[in-house]
């Protein structure tokens, strides 16, 4: 056997190995992409039920007695606000199903309506003061079990003992459906209300506003500090100075410190030492500022570095000072890169959860925050809170909140990419 034959004998094996290796590469890429699509599809599919909500059509009798109002012709806003609305919805239901008399069934009948229905009725009366004393045909929010049933999330074929909707409730829903008195509508609540213990009343407006205020604080603090730090390190810092080396190592290391450690810093320094109010967007923003600083500093330095020396030299040669060169020429040219890095840093901050748990932003907040000092929660933390809730309806809500969060992140990244593509200059 000569050398050629030896080589030839091994060649097929080597080619097979080559093909196999190429296949592994394609396989692992496909696997990762498959996972991504599965993740997005799974969450997207789970979120769909959250975007609709079940309403029941009822003839609500705004009886003065039931509302605990005195017999008058007109009422002030305050009296109407503090009137009792809890019996109106159930009374209408009792009238619709007069055959229901047993206590347990009556309770089940009451639970067909959301406990938040009374507030909707109150708002309706406040809007139309002349409702009092009349009977109005209104659509009223259904309870979460009924909602889940109507959406098909509860299977009517499983034994009664295993499902949360009882047989008689199923019957009532069927009756209502036959009369066209039950309907699924777009869930406007989800975008206009704050958090609630009841899934059918819970919304993300509070979390959205909390995220907005937190991001505002983060942006206002981190952008100027990071850009100034980067300018100093890139343009003014003495070279080969151990001081500067320490700062640089520090920044690189901070970029890789676990986010939860920043939360502990926030708890110990901001809250316990300086007395910044807990759970407020202010302290959240302060913590996220420290987290985003390294990201923005690193990208700003890269952007400053990419401005060619010829521009600096040209400016210097006609008598500009170093500071003038930077503020008049280098910084404007580097701005697209700086903005891209900042948006990416902000996107990271928007999705951050763990450090905010440490500083009390995980508390249940039903009110919508009005300033950076009000207790608030943010979108990702809202996702975490809801995912912990046992009620069925919260799974869809959690997914819907995630979808909202991902949409925001998507747009932020899109803006960053467009900025980069549009203003990228190759010198």
């Amino acid at each position: 056997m000569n050398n050629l034959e030896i080589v030839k004998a091994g060649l097929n094996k080597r080619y097979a190995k080559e093909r196999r290796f190429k296949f592994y590469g394609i396989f692992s890429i496909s696997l990762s992409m498959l996972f991504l699509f599965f993740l997005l599809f799974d969450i997207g599919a789970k979120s769909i039920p959250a975007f609709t909500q079940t309403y029941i059509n009822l003839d609500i009798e705004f009886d003065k007695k039931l509302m605990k109002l005195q017999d008058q012709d007109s009422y002030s806003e305050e009296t109407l606000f503090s009137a009792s609305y809890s019996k109106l919805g159930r009374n209408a239901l009792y009238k619709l199903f007069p055959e229901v008399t047993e206590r347990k069934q009556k309770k089940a009948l009451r639970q067909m309506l959301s406990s938040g229905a009374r507030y909707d009725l109150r708002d309706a009366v406040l809007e139309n003061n002349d409702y009092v004393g009349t009977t109005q045909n209104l659509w009223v929010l259904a309870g979460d079990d009924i909602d889940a049933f109507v959406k098909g999330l509860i299977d009517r074929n499983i034994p009664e003992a295993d499902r949360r909707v009882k047989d008689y409730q199923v019957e009532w829903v069927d009756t209502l459906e036959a009369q066209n008195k039950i309907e699924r509508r777009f869930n406007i609540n989800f975008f206009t209300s704050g958090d609630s213990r009841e899934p059918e009343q819970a919304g993300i407006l509070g979390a959205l506003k909390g995220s907005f205020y937190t991001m505002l604080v983060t942006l206002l603090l981190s952008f100027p500090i990071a850009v100034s730090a980067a300018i100093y390190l890139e343009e003014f810092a003495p070279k080969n100075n151990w001081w500067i080396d320490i700062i640089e190592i520090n920044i690189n290391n901070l970029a890789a410190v676990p986010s939860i450690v920043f939360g502990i810093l926030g708890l110990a320094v901001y809250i316990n030492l300086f007395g910044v109010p807990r759970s407020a967007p202010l302290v959240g923003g302060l913590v996220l500022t420290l987290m985003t600083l390294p990201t923005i500093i690193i990208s700003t330095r890269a952007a400053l570095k990419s401005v060619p020396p010829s521009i600096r030299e040209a400016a210097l040669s006609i008598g500009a000072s170093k500071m003038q060169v930077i503020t008049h020429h280098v910084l404007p040219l580097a701005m697209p890169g700086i903005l891209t890095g900042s948006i990416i840093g902000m996107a990271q901050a928007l999705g951050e959860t763990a450090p905010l748990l440490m500083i009390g932003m995980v508390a249940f907040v039903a009110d919508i925050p009005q300033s950076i000092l009000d207790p608030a929660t943010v979108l990702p933390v809202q996702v975490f809170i809801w995912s912990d809730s046992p009620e069925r309806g919260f799974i869809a809500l959690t997914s819907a909140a995630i979808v909202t969060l991902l949409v925001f992140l998507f747009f932020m990244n899109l803006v960053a990419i467009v900025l980069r593509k549009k203003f990228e200059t190759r010198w």
Partner: protein
Amino acid sequence: MSNLEILLILIIAAAIAYYATKRQAQSWQASRDKTKLDSLPNYYGYFGTICTLLPALIVLSFWSFIEGNIISALVVSKFERLSALNASDLSLVMNEIKIIVESGLSEKNSNDLFYEKAAVLIERYSSVSLFLKVASVFALSILGFMYAYLKITPRFKARKKVEKTAVYLLLLSALVAILTTAGIIFSVLFESIAFFSQISIFDFVFGTHWSPQIAIREGQVSSTGGFGAFPLFWGTILISIIAMIVAAPLGLISAIYLAEYAQPKIRNVVKPILEILAGVPTVVYGFFAALTVGPMVSGFGDRLNEFGMSFEIELFAGLVVSSESALAAGLVMGMMIMPFILSLSDDVINAVPDSLRDGSIAMGSTKSETVWKVVFPAALPGIVGGFLLAISRAIGETMIVLMAAGVAANLTANPLNSVTTVTTQIVVLLTGDQEFDSIKTLSAFALALGLFVTTLILNILALQIVRRYREQYE
């Protein structure tokens, strides 16, 4: 007057100062003898702004930071009943008093006269402090402006002064990084020392019994067994190992394929898509792990169990998969750090000079042989650095393990069991309301210290390796 209002007034004052000083400079310029200015008129304006604003701002922020603590200390020193209390009780009492102050003194809402007395005192001190603050800030601002106005002459080197101040401000910003690190060390170190004064380091690191939820009273020395953190360290390591088993081959092979085989067109599409995985918030992964992957893994375990039983195979007997398993958390975490490994490896593989590849191809080796025998060894240090960074990220990851791995401190090598991690326990211990000084809370700081030191070492090591590697081929 709130700080915000003071700030607004200061800014208005600064704007006025800017125009006044600038006008002054311009008037010299426009005067009959056409005085030549040292700097552009703007710079005189900037100088005026700096003098008006900077000292006042420094005093304002400093005062606001210490004012609360000083008032509290003064009040405590006035009342013997307060100074006799220990730290945690004192903070409770002070909080109550502050609530009374905030709700308004006119309402007699407290049943204890003492509280009201303290509240009155606090309010008196606060108003004095506010008066002093406002007075000193505005006085400084006016003095600063007068100084600037008197100081400027046509020969005054305004630009130099302004630029020098600006550079100092830039340096100050750069120092924030150091302050942050110092803050982290400060916040974990002292609490950890307090913790280790009660529980020995050895017990903490090697103890196998973790149950901090059992309240430990002061002086109850015997039950230190509740703070053995070894199961947590092990849980962290186990989940990180699973994550790396998933992420390392997937990330590395994908990176090699994209760098060496894929056409630029495919590369430009695939890489951004895979990088989406890096942009997904961790809480989303946690939700996915807890709600989809966890049940899938345990369902698969049950299926295996049935399968084993029907064929009477001993192997799967007794295989119980809890719905919160290390495997589910590790798998999802692996997918989370995969893009991280992918982009780091991609960078280092691309940095390997083409001459090495060409040499190998010229000797007749196939592409895969070139990759494994030439490119990979050359890129190895960089890849190892990337892996270390990925491990550090896996160790520090919180949300996935918090939502999918459980809180039970099991010491087990079985990935199908539920384990808990350092980060999970930190969250569990520090969320909810408890006093800051309890040993339970302190243990969270000790855990955080361990976490910080571990990731610090990994990061510095990794950055050092990557940097040396880059220098080698540059």
